């Protein structure tokens, strides 16, 4: 019998406690917690209150080292392709064209003075596939590939998720390829000519 009444009593008391807590929060709803990020000094000095942030208008700030959207600074990219090989899911596609010797100056140098030796007609990152693990950024020798703290980049079309960073248009790439092919053909022809000359010489010498 005492258990019976004891149960009723604990039930009443604990329910009252719980209701007290919710009522306290209800009346506390006049306050609103700010939108400071964790890296803010006053983060834990914000008032207790409603903690909703209305997303598109207010956002939780992402820290500076936030790993979200991939971005490639193509000016600094030397086209080594390490990121492509390191990516666990293969969301990076790279195509390179060797820079012709007379174009080296045109192709330019990276910001730390390294000579770039490849044109990059295609440097595509499929950010929809990207799982923001950050492995590609750690292998990048020139640190041109980086995750930016931009966390919201939704699109209506799947194809918009493929970010093109290539520094050549298709026509230019075609031209470069043709040039390379020509150079190669020239070199080939020269080689053949040389070989033929050598042959002739050796024949003439006989």
């Amino acid at each position, binding site marked *: 019998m005492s258990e019976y009444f004891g*149960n009723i009593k*604990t*039930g009443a008391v*604990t*329910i009252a*406690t*719980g209701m007290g*807590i*919710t009522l306290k*929060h209800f009346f506390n709803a006049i306050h609103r917690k700010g939108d400071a*990020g*964790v*890296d803010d*000094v006053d*983060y*834990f000095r914000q008032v207790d209150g409603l*903690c909703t942030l209305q997303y598109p208008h207010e956002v*939780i700030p*992402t*820290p500076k*080292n*936030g*790993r979200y959207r991939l971005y490639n600074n193509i000016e600094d990219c030397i086209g080594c392709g390490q990121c492509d090989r*390191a990516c*666990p899911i293969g969301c990076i596609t790279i195509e390179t064209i060797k820079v012709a010797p007379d174009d080296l100056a045109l192709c330019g140098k990276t910001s730390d003075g390294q000579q770039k030796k490849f044109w990059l007609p295609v440097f595509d990152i499929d950010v929809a596939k990207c*799982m*923001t*693990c*950050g*492995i590609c950024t*750690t292998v990048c020798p020139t640190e041109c590939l980086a*995750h930016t703290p931009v966390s919201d980049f939704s699109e209506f079309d799947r194809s918009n998720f493929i970010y093109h960073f290539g520094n050549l248009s298709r026509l230019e790439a075609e031209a470069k390829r043709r040039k390379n092919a020509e150079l190669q053909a020239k070199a080939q022809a020269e080689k053949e000519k040389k070989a033929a000359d050598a042959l002739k010489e050796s024949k003439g010498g006989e």
Partner: protein
Amino acid sequence: MQELDTAGLGSVRVTRKNDNVVVIEKDLATEQMVLAMGPQHPSTHGVLKLECLTDGEVITEAVPYLGYLHRCFEKCCENVDYPAIVPYTDRLDYLSGMNSEFSYALAVEKLLDIEIPRRVEFIRVIVAELNRIASHLVAIGTYGIDLGAFTPFLFCFRDREIILGLLEWASGARMLYNYIWIGGLAYDVPSDFLKRVREFVTYFRPKAVELCNLLTENEIFVKRTRGIGLMPAGVAINYGWSGPMLRGSGVKWDLRRNDPYSVYPELDFNVPVPDGKLSDVGDCLSRHLVRAWEMDESLKIIEQCIDKMPSAEGFNPRSAIPKRIRPKAGEVYARAENPRGELGFYIQSDGKSTKPLRCKARSSCFVNLSAMKDLSKGQLIPDLVAIIGSIDIVLGEVDR
């Protein structure tokens, strides 16, 4: 026990109370009905399907069907380099990524036999314990939802949000960190991080008490969980349970103590087990209480780590990271205490490749879930919900 035997297979509801088996409704057998609970059921915590054979509301048998979230983790691992597996381990138990990474890193480090800088170890423990609190907050909050209490869930998520913010600040990502690397860390923690973590500890203590008053002590909550889903210690061990589930059954087993790794031996913390006063040992309430107590222990661990941490001067979190990971041929099994129990990685290397020959994850949720058949026998549907909630499964880890 005599009662139980004569009751036969019909509608039997068995309640164990201090070894006295009580049988209810034994003569009310009606037609049996197959009830598919899930995979789109609100309280199966993801895509678990339970096929229940029910008799009225009494469940005579519940069989879990898995695999809806199978992502070939182990096969993926065989095709990527050792460091590239780390982000995949995040996705096993997505509520406690840090802990999964930690145990994978332990495994590969054991295979490579490398020394880890001391500061790295402390940072690892801090982030892992922070993540443990976040994970337990989700477990407790969703358990409240399973039992119909919505408000504690929101309070839990409010505080979890802060932890996620802290971990994002340290690692750059909110849930899938890729922070603990083989042999080190991705980055050192930001300069103010430890101060903010300490502030969080002081902030969180009263919130945990409030949560306890609101949910854990609530008489309805106690009535719903106490004595439900009883699992005796012996059976729990035989099933291979680990973590809060095993401790809920009264077995004082914590890998941080019993198979110590990292700097845990230097730290002072308790392994909470229920004493049978607040709950019946081995029931849903015990498991819930163990989780609640563990949050407190984690706070203690974090505070100690901050005190004992070596300074950041001349510290390079990547100093011990091997340039090219190609372990010599061999195999290794390393395990760590995850919020949900023992997460172990078995890795086999052929000595030539930079990819593991085999990488198997021993998932705690999967093992804990395997006892579902025993736990659910003779329970009511609402109790089944309470039991699933108390197992605290993350389907990402169950299916892998």
